[in-house]
């Protein structure tokens, strides 16, 4: 299999006599690292599927007449894109892949607190995914990922129940992961690893888990109510049957706004790791970054009403939600400033993960700032439900979460597989994604302010130029996503052996071999230093050691 044998026995290897035994050793594994790999494969499959749906949507929007797809097909395409990306890629993405792989390693534990629950969560994810997939195969669903009632509960003639079942089951997979993270962080830390010595990735995952545990059950029961209303024909959310459609929106956004932070917070954690490592110095303002994650998690629960400024809520609640939304911008700003300050007097290298991290900051700043636009009610009235919103959340979700996900994958790839990928292609693809992304989504801000409503497949002529620009950008973006897929896969066979710590990073995960042994640590480590314990002269030494020809 490998051109050169990997050193020591990693978690990837085992001595199974038959193929069947090998498959079983994966499908019944309780090793958090193997579960992370299972998640990696499944989640990337859904990412590609969601991306395919997005391409269909973008191709349709090149012309204003809606000549490629019927309205029904178009509605199914963007709904599929939304549901797959939100529920099956963005929400589980970083926690289930990177979190599962890294948290036990980072806290110095042999596994998660509940390994079998961890495996169970992967099966739940797969079952939920199968539900959603079969809903798509057997005719699709056309409610949009938001499932607004009474359209979803009474009027839609598509596979709403099947899709809801998928999201519902997937929710329990998230909950299982969240419970595991919280308990692992609390009880499994190695001796000496105090809370303020934890890597920031663990902090942000902890904050994420709190949101998962508190918010996911609410959307679970909400979606269940929609399904019951469809089956039974009894009005909970349909006013024609005595219900209240706004109740659905309140319950839905009570989960789905915090869910936005479920998607982005782990990304913050990844970026903190990357910036520190590739500046060769301690992260600036550790406590502020850690606490801003917690602040976001808490305030994030109080802002759901900003999705409903034009839905008919009272002026007072509009003002209150707007005010709290303004406040939630501050912790995000604090993070960005601290990352920037970390660069100062560092010894910066442009390795592939760092390029993603820098790209993340640039895109997230735009995403965050336009979030303030949307938080101001007077402006939100004009731009909500237009492409402005579409552009905004893609800047946060794609520009933020996916950049962080890819950055994290590139950073820990040598640890996960023991091999290095081609960094020339890594840099090129990071650049292509950054350019393609801006081409795709920046025009959408303009489109939105011009008044182009979202979820339209036919539109007035004057919007076409910007739509064409956006579709052109999306092809570039697609190429940018395909390149890493190729060179990362190739690296499994052709890649150079990475060694235990290819980036000279700190952190317990880099003290074990690459790939790590099945039980992580022979002896549970005793931690005596804080995270990012680069000595003061590390940056200087690193810069002094640089010679022309060393990696940039």
């Amino acid at each position: 299999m490998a051109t050169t044998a990997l050193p020591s026995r990693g978690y990837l290897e085992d001595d199974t006599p038959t193929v069947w035994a090998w498959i079983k050793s994966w499908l019944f594994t309780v090793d958090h690292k193997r579960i992370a790999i299972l998640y990696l494969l499944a989640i990337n499959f859904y990412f590609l599927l969601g991306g395919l749906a997005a391409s269909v949507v973008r191709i349709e929007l090149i012309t204003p007449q809606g000549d490629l797809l019927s309205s029904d097909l178009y509605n199914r395409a963007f709904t599929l894109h939304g549901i797959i990306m939100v529920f099956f890629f963005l929400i589980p993405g970083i926690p289930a892949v990177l979190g599962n792989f890294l948290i036990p390693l980072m806290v110095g534990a042999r596994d998660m607190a509940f390994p079998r629950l961890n495996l169970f969560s992967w099966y739940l994810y797969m079952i939920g995914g199968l539900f959603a997939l079969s809903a798509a195969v057997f005719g699709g669903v056309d409610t949009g990922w938001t499932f607004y009632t009474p359209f979803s509960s009474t009027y839609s003639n598509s596979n709403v129940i099947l899709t809801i079942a998928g999201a519902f089951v997937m929710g329990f997979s998230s909950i299982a992961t969240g419970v595991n993270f919280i308990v692992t962080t609390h009880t499994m830390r190695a001796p000496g690893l105090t809370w303020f010595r934890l890597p920031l990735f663990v902090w942000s995952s902890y904050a994420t888990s709190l949101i998962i545990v508190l918010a996911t059950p609410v959307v679970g029961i909400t979606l269940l109510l929609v399904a019951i209303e469809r089956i039974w024909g009894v009005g909970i959310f349909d006013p024609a049957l005595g219900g209240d459609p706004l109740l659905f929106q309140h319950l839905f956004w009570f989960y789905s706004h915090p869910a936005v932070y479920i998607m982005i917070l782990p990304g913050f954690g990844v970026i903190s790791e990357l910036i520190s490592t590739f500046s060769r110095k301690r992260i600036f303002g550790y406590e502020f970054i850690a606490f801003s994650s917690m602040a976001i998690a808490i305030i994030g629960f109080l802002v759901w009403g900003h999705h409903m400024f034009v839905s008919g809520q009272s002026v007072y609640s509009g003002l209150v939600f707007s005010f709290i939304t303004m406040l939630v911008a501050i912790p995000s700003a604090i993070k960005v400033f601290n990352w920037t300050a970390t660069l100062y007097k560092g010894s910066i290298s442009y390795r592939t993960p760092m390029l993603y991290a820098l790209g993340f900051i640039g895109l997230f700043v735009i995403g965050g700032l336009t979030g303030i636009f949307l938080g101001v009610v007077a402006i939100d009235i004009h731009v909500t439900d237009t492409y402005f919103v579409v552009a905004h959340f893609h800047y946060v979700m794609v520009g933020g979460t996916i950049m962080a996900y890819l950055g994290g994958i590139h950073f820990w790839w040598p640890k996960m597989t023991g091999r290095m990928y081609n960094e020339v292609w890594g840099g090129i693809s990071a650049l292509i994604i950054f350019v393609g992304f801006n081409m795709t989504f920046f025009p959408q801000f303009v489109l939105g302010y011009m008044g182009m409503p979202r979820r339209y497949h036919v539109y007035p002529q004057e919007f076409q130029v910007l739509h064409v620009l956006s579709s052109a950008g999306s092809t570039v973006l697609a190429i940018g996503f395909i390149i890493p897929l190729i060179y990362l896969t190739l690296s499994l066979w052709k890649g150079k052996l990475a060694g235990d710590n290819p980036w000279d990073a700190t952190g317990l995960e880099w003290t074990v071999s690459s790939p790590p042994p099945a039980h992580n640590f022979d002896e549970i480590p005793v931690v005596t230093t804080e995270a990012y314990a680069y000595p003061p002269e590390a940056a200087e030494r690193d810069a002094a050691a640089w010679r022309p020809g060393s990696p940039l």
Partner: protein
Amino acid sequence: MPDFPLFPEQASTFAGPIDALYGVLIALSLIFGGILPFIILYLMVRYHRSQKADRRNQPEGSLPLELTWTIIPLVLVLAVFFWGAFLYIDIRTPPARNLEIYVIGKQWMWHTQHSNGKRENNELHVPINQPVKLIMTSQDVIHSFYIPAFRVKQDVLPGRYTTMWFEATKTGEYHLFCAEYCGTEHARMVGRVVAMSLADYERWLTTPGEIILPDGSAGAGGSGSTLIPSIGDPMALAGAQLFTSLGCVGCHRDDGAGIGPSLVGLYNVETRMQDGSLVTADENYLRESILNPGAKTVAGYANVMPSYDGQLSEDQLNQLVAYIKSLSDSGSASTRLSNDQIAGVVADELK
């Protein structure tokens, strides 16, 4: 190639202030989002590992710095918040005197009716320099009434009224969109808003046109050649006829001596309820009281009114509400019809 504008037209009194706030936000964003990348680029180059630079005395954190970049953005966003808040309150507070137009949204068209009874589909004619208030409801799912050139948008919900107001400033034709996803032909639930001078509007209003009812059937345009029948009855009059034919008039007598409270002067007045609470009798209260009379009963009256849920179309509800509101319209006494007059009108019709 079509033209390539970056801003929508400014055609209402809100457009200017909202664009100004938007402009200021863009300027602030450029200061942060524009300068920050340059700082990052500078640091990336200055402290790249190949560069000789002073890397001693690295700061690990600095409370003054943290406070600075917490407090300055906080002050800025709060300033923006208050600016936006006052603008928002303006947008949500219609002036006392305005032109009321009723809107019904349904999959997938807009139906509007003017106070003199004239109806339109997927079009809305409004006069300029005149506050217009839309009273909107939906027959099925949630829609959203959106006029980009006016910078206004409001969701239209089934089972209740939502309102929105604007004052157009420029004659012309503008896009009308449904902004809330409402099913298959959502993208075709579009139309146009025609802003015209007051004189033109009045001329247009009294020009008979084809009457299309919200259920899609073409209404009786008129066997008669008179103007009024072919426009349809004024909404308040149609409501008054309903008020009589449904028998409401038997209990809700003008003089207050009936089983139910008098509806004269009720609209938009705070009224004491049986449970002691005070409720403003707005459109939604009137609607609720017709469909679910027991929900909020006026103090001093028994809950004996039957529910009219399922017996009235959205269209008829609008007319009833318009009639009850006309009973409070002291300013224009000429349009106000007393119950006796209605009885007369209805009697004439029946002959």
